[in-house]
């Protein structure tokens, strides 16, 4: 396009807006339709999570972690529990480990389904959103079967779980997986290879490797830029090293490596890998074992600190826990992946049209609860 500078217009996207995945305000400077600078303003959902954690006991922190990334609560719990068990040097038994992995991977599938559906919705495709939600409902039914909650579970406790798997869970999950695998192909066909969607997202918002690493972007966003980094393989926690699965990276099939289409497509591929992991875990889960076996009577970790990272659907979640020997945490910091993903929006969003900015925001898959905590 030729360079003609008119007057700059300052536009506010949000805080109430159907496309911003929560309450986020983006102040956008545009010249006509071309965007020159994006400034995110957040904090509308700030609930002082870290300050609260300094006033409640270690067990009571777990429901707080649920509410940070409310679309992937199991993964939030998992990260906290891994960090605490590393700090207190607790070993849980095999059954607990297998159940945790099954729940985390099912949660990953649910979260990625929602993200891909919402990405389509932002671009005007109404139907795949509803199909993705229909399948997500069945996963939420499985969770409800186990712990009674559909969205905020408080399921993984330090040293074990809150409930064991109910009777019939394994069969239900196998039935769900058999039903679900053709649906991923359906979703991919209607969404990923649709010509209009490809035109709207390929070559848009390209994030090169070095910018991704420098900005701390992790998870599917980083993998879409071509960096093969997955905490489940490169820094395995729990028993992830026993499962066989691939780590899909973006290859620029429809455009450049690291564009919106890649970020979106990597998530669809990851759904398939998670299905593989769940199948393997269900096949070899030990039949006996008490999930409450290693729950400590009172959580009093030794003095010290720990930093543990786990892989959530949005990236690397890090918990830095500093304890001073009392039952209440001294300081707990959550390093959330969506926080860093949002910080890269200004870098990759300049120079595109307004509709593209919303496509880029959708492809980064942010959840405001995690950013604001």
């Amino acid at each position, binding site marked *: 396009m030729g360079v003609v500078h008119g007057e700059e217009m300052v536009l506010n996207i949000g805080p109430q807006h159907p496309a911003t995945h929560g309450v986020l305000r983006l102040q956008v400077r545009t010249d006509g339709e071309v965007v020159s600078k994006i400034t995110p303003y957040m*904090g509308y959902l700030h609930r002082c999570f870290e*300050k609260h954690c300094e006033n409640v006991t270690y067990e009571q922190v777990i429901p707080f972690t649920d509410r940070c990334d409310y679309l992937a609560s199991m993964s939030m719990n998992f990260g906290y529990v891994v960090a605490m068990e590393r700090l207190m040097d607790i070993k849980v038994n095999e059954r607990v480990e297998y159940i945790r992995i099954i729940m985390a991977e099912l949660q990953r599938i649910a979260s990625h389904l929602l993200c891909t559906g919402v990405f389509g919705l932002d671009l005007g495709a109404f139907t795949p959103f509803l199909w993705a939600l229909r399948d997500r409902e069945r996963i939420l039914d499985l969770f409800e079967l186990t712990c009674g909650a559909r969205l905020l579970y408080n399921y993984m406790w330090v040293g074990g779980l809150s409930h064991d798997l109910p009777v019939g869970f394994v069969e239900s999950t196998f039935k769900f997986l058999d039903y679900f695998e053709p649906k991923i192909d359906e979703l991919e066909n209607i969404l990923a290879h649709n010509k209009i969607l490809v035109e709207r997202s390929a070559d848009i918002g390209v994030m090169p490797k070095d910018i991704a690493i420098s900005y701390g972007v992790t998870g599917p966003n980083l993998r879409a830029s071509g960096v*093969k980094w*997955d905490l489940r393989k490169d820094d395995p926690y729990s028993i992830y*090293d026993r499962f066989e699965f691939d780590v899909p990276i973006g290859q620029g099939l429809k455009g450049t490596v690291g564009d919106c289409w890649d970020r979106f497509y990597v998530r669809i591929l990851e759904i398939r890998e998670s299905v593989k992991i769940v199948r393997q875990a269900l096949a070899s889960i030990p039949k006996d074992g008490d999930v409450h076996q290693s729950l400590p009577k009172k959580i009093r970790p030794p003095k010290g600190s720990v*930093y543990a990272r786990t892989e959530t659907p949005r990236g690397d979640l890090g918990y830095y826990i500093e304890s001073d020997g009392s039952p209440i945490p001294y300081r707990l*910091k959550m390093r959330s992946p969506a926080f860093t993903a949002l910080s890269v929006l200004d870098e990759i969003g300049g120079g595109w049209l307004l509709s593209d900015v919303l496509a880029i925001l959708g492809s980064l898959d942010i959840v405001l609860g995690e950013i604001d905590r």
Partner: protein
Amino acid sequence: MTENQQKLIDELVNKGLDGDMDAVNAHQDRMVRAKAKSMIMKIQKGILKRPPLKKISPEEVPNGDIVQNQEKKENKQESTSAKVVRKLLEKFPNEIENEEFDSHIQLKPDKWFEIATWLKSEPELFFDSLQCQMGIDVQDDILESRYNLHSMKHNHYVELRIAVSRSNAKIPSVEKIWRVADWFERETYDMLGIEYIGHSDLRRILLPDDWEGWPLRKDYQEQETYHGIIVPKMKEGWE
């Protein structure tokens, strides 16, 4: 490839993955060295699985794998920290403040920017990603800024801490080195009041711009009202 050679290569590979590349480099046989190095690279990329060490047998320890991983992790952490300290002492002699380097390295704030630049560019350390940066209010009037660094290339970590006093809480900003530090430092400033010198746009990020006080400090008192809305006080400890 005899069995002995295979065992030797496995041992070297395990040592190398734990951070001790000198053992691999010092081996005489060029063939063994090359095979060990290529195996290490493949394992780091995820193509191969790590060969088990023959030392600990799984029957003795009930949850063999998990204990091994944890031990190796601590070994890795220790030797990375030790390596960083060794190199730091060569280059910046007076900047380290603690004696035991098991978990972290304590630095002085003055030359932090130069140290950080060097940490990122030094080929053997190559910490190209700042995983987490946070602030914490340690007792006795000290605020600390803690950095968890990680290297994508070598897959090792280190934790650095910088302590400043409350009255003069100024630390050089590393925003230009790791771009992610931009928002992390803004958040630490917002919550704890540590000022980062050289930051391009240090303002509050999560709280409104005209909020008063630094909430995560231990002596924080909420303001009475905010634009006419009464700010509720915290409840007492939940036991």
